[in-house]
C-alpha cells in the first residue's frame, strides 16, 4: 500500500467510523425526548426506564462520536495539509459555527445525563431536545463543508490563487441543500431501523415485552417515516448531481457513453477497460427521465470526460446500487408496517414483520456508508471538484501506512468494545428494568 492510498483509506475509515456515532448522536435524543415526554405525561415508569436505558447507550456512543470527531479535525490537516491550507479559510465558516453547536450540545448533554431528579422535569426534558436540535444543526453544517468540496464556490481561482474569498457564499453552495437534507433524513432512517431492529429482536425472544414494545414503536415510527421520504430526497440529490457533477453521475450509473434516451442500469458488473456493463438489467429511457424529467434527454457519459478525470466506476456504481437497493427494501418494510398499523393494532404478534425489522437492523447504516462512498469516491480524482486533485493535497510525510494501521487497530478495538458494551446493556435490561411491566400495568 503506498502512502497516498493509505491516507485516503485512513480518511475513509475515520469518517466511516465517525458517521455512525454522529447519526446516533443526532437522532437518539429525539427518541428519548419522545419517551421522556410520555413519561412526564403518563408517569408510567416504563417510559422512564426506556429513556434511561437509551441514554446510557447514547452516552457511550456520544463519547465515541466526540473523540472520533476530534480526531477528524486534526486528520484533515495531518493527511491533507495542502488542501487545508487553501480550503480552510474558504469552507471554514460552517466549522466555526459548528463549534457553537457542539458546545451547546455538550452542555445540554451534561444537563440531560446528570440532571435526573435535580431540575424541574420540563427543563430537564428540554435540555434533551436541545441535544438533538444542536446535533442536527452541527450535522447540517459539516455537510455544508463537504458539499463545498463537491461544488466549490465563494472564491475566484485565478492562476492557482484563491482570491475574493466569501465564506458565507461558500457555505451556501449549490450542493448544500440536497446533501444536508438527504443526510439528515438518512440519520433518522438508519438509527430508527437499527434501534427498532434490536427491540424487534428482543420481542421475538419474548423478553420484557412491555419495555421493548414501546421502544420499538417509537423507533419504528421515526425510521419508517424517514425511509418513505428518503427516496424522494435521493431523487432530488440525483438530479442535482447530474447538473453539477456529470462525471459522478456517470460513474454511479456506470454510464460509459453519452446518449439520448439513456437506460437506467440496475446491477451488473462494470468493465472499465471494455467500457461495458455485463449482466445488468437495463430499463430504456429511465435514466434520462430520472435525471432530466424527459425520457429523450441526453445524459453525459464518461466518454465526454477526460480519462484522467474519471472516478473509479465500479466502486461508485456498486455503492450506489447498494444504497438504492437497501433504500427500496426499507421503503417496503415501512409501507408494510404502516399498513398493518392501519389495519389492526396487534401487529406485535406478527412474527414475520418483527423478523423483517430484525433483519433490517444494519441496513440503514450500510446505506449511509454506501451513500458516502458514492459521494466521496465519485468526486475522485478531485479533492476540491475541478480545482485541486486529491493526489496534490496529501501530506509530504512518508510512512502514513503505519498511521493507517494504527488507526485501523484503534477503531477496530473501539468498535469491538462498544459492541460488547451494547450487548451487555441489552442483556441487563432484564434485571435492571424488569419491574416495568407490572408497575406500569398497575398504574394504567
Amino acid at each position, binding site marked *: 500500500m503506498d502512502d497516498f492510498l493509505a491516507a485516503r483509506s485512513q480518511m475513509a475509515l475515520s469518517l466511516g467510523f465517525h458517521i455512525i456515532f454522529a447519526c446516533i448522536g443526532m437522532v437518539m435524543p429525539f427518541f428519548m425526548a419522545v419517551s421522556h415526554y410520555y413519561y412526564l405525561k403518563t408517569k408510567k415508569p416504563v417510559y422512564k426506564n426506556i429513556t434511561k436505558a437509551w441514554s*446510557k447507550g447514547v*452516552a*457511550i456512543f*456520544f*463519547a*465515541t462520536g466526540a*473523540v*472520533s470527531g*476530534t*480526531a477528524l*479535525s*486534526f486528520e*484533515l*490537516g*495531518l493527511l491533507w*495539509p*495542502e488542501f*487545508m*491550507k*487553501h480550503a*480552510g*479559510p*474558504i469552507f*471554514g*465558516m460552517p*466549522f*466555526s*459555527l*459548528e*463549534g*457553537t453547536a*457542539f*458546545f451547546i450540545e*455538550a*452542555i445540554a*448533554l*451534561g*444537563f440531560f445525563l*446528570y*440532571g435526573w431528579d*435535580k431540575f424541574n422535569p420540563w427543563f430537564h426534558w428540554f435540555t434533551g431536545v436541545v441535544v438533538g436540535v444542536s446535533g442536527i444543526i452541527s450535522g447540517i453544517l459539516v455537510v455544508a463543508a463537504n458539499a463545498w468540496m463537491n461544488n466549490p464556490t465563494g472564491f475566484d481561482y485565478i492562476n492557482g490563487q484563491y*482570491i475574493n*474569498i*466569501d*465564506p*458565507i457564499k461558500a457555505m451556501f453552495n449549490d450542493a448544500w441543500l440536497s446533501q444536508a437534507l438527504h443526510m439528515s433524513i438518512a440519520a433518522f432512517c438508519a438509527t430508527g431501523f437499527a434501534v427498532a431492529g434490536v427491540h424487534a429482536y428482543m420481542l421475538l425472544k419474548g423478553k420484557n415485552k412491555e419495555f421493548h414494545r414501546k421502544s420499538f414503536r417509537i423507533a419504528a415510527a421515526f425510521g419508517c417515516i424517514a425511509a418513505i421520504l428518503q427516496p424522494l430526497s435521493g431523487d432530488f440529490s440525483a438530479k442535482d448531481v447530474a447538473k453539477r457533477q456529470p462525471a459522478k453521475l456517470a460513474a454511479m450509473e456506470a454510464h460509459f457513453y453519452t446518449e439520448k434516451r439513456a437506460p437506467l442500469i440496475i446491477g451488473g458488473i462494470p468493465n472499465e477497460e471494455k467500457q461495458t456493463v455485463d449482466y445488468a438489467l437495463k430499463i430504456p429511457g429511465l435514466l434520462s427521465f430520472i435525471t432530466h424529467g424527459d425520457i429523450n434527454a441526453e445524459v453525459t457519459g464518461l466518454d465526454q470526460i477526460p480519462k484522467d478525470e474519471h472516478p473509479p466506476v465500479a466502486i461508485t456504481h456498486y455503492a450506489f446500487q447498494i444504497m438504492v437497493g437497501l433504500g427500496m427494501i426499507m421503503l417496503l418494510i415501512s409501507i408494510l408496517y404502516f399498513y398493518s398499523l392501519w389495519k389492526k393494532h396487534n401487529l406485535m404478534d406478527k412474527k414475520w414483520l418483527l423478523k423483517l425489522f430484525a433483519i433490517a437492523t444494519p441496513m440503514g447504516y450500510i446505506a449511509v456508508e454506501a451513500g458516502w462512498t458514492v459521494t466521496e469516491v465519485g468526486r475522485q480524482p478531485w479533492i476540491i471538484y475541478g480545482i485541486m486533485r486529491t493526489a496534490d493535497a496529501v*501530506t*509530504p*510525510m512518508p*510512512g502514513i501506512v503505519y*498511521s493507517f494501521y*494504527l488507526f485501523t487497530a*484503534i477503531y477496530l478495538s*473501539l468498535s469491538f*468494545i462498544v459492541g460488547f*458494551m451494547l450487548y*451487555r446493556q441489552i*442483556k*441487563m435490561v432484564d434485571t*435492571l428494568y424488569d419491574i416495568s411491566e407490572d408497575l406500569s400495568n398497575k398504574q394504567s
Partner: protein
Amino acid sequence: MIYVVIAFLWAAIWLYLLLGGADFGAGILELFTSDKNKSKTRKTVYRVIGPVWEANHMWLIIAIVILFVGFPKIYTLMSVHMHIPLVIMLVGIIARGTAFTFRHYDAVVDDMQVVYNKIFQYSSFITPFFLGIIAASTVSGAIDTEAKDFLSAYVYSWLNWFSIAVGLFTVSICGFLAAIFIIGETDTEEDKRRFIQKAKFMNIAAVITGGLVFIIAYLEGIPLAQWIFGNPIGTIAISAATLSLIILWKTIDKKNAVQLRILAGFQVSMILLSLTYEHFPNIILLKNGEYLSLMEYQGEEKTIAALAWALLLGSLFILPALYYLIYSFQKKGKVH
C-alpha cells in the same frame, strides 16, 4: 477583527489549560494514588468532572478550528512537522475519553473496569505530556522546514530535551490544578487532607520540572529567560505567579476552596501570559530563525471577519449556558 480572533484563540488555549488541565490532572492523580484509595479518588473525580468533561475538550476543538480557518498556513505547518506527536496526542484523547465513559456506563462491573482504569490513567498522563511537547516545539526553533531527511523533518522537530521538560511541566501543572480543584469537592476531612497532600506534591513537581525547563533552555541556548524577563509584563506576571504560590502554600491548610482555586488558576494563567506575551504575535519560531506571525499569516479579511462574528455570536450562547451548567452542578453536587 483580527484581534477578536486572536483573543479567542488565546482564551481557548487558556481555558483548555485550566479546565481541560484539571480534567487530565484528575487522571494523573489517580495514577499516583495508592491502590487503597484509588476507588475513592475515582468516585470524587467522576462526580466532579463527569458533567463537564465533554464541554472541556471543546476548547481544544475551538482552538483548532480558529487555527485552520484563520491561520491556515500555521495549522498546516504544524500538522506536517508535528504529525507524530499530534497522532500520539490524538490516540491519548481517544483512549481517555472513551475509557472514562466506558468505565461508568458499562452495565456490568467486572474485570473490564481494571482495563478502563489503566487506559484512563495512562492516557491522562500521555495526552498533556505531548501537548506540552508540541507547545514547546513551536517556540523553540526546532522545526526545520528545509530539512531533507525524515528524522530532522518529522522527528527532531519535536523530540528534544527542552520539549520533554516542558511536557513534564505541563503534566505537573495539570495534576496540581486537579488536586486544588478537587479539595473543594471532597466531603470528609480525611479526603481533604489527602488532596491537599497531593496538591503540595504536584506543586513541588511543577517547581522542579519548571526549573528543569529553565536549565535545559539555558543549556540548549534557547533564550527563555530573556523572553520572560526581557519585558515588564512577563516579569510582573512571573512575580505575581510566585507571590500567589507563596500565598497558596501559606493558606492551603485553611482549606478555603474558592480562594485556593483562584490562586491556582491565577498562577497558571500568569505563567501562560508570561510565556506568550513576548512572543506575540509570533507563534512559531523556525530553525532558520524565521518567525511565523499571526498577523502576517492571517487569512483573508472577509474570512477573519466572518470567523470573529461566528465566535462572538457563539459565545453569546455558550458562556451563559456553560456558566449555568457549572454553577448548577456545583450547587446540586453539594446537596447530594
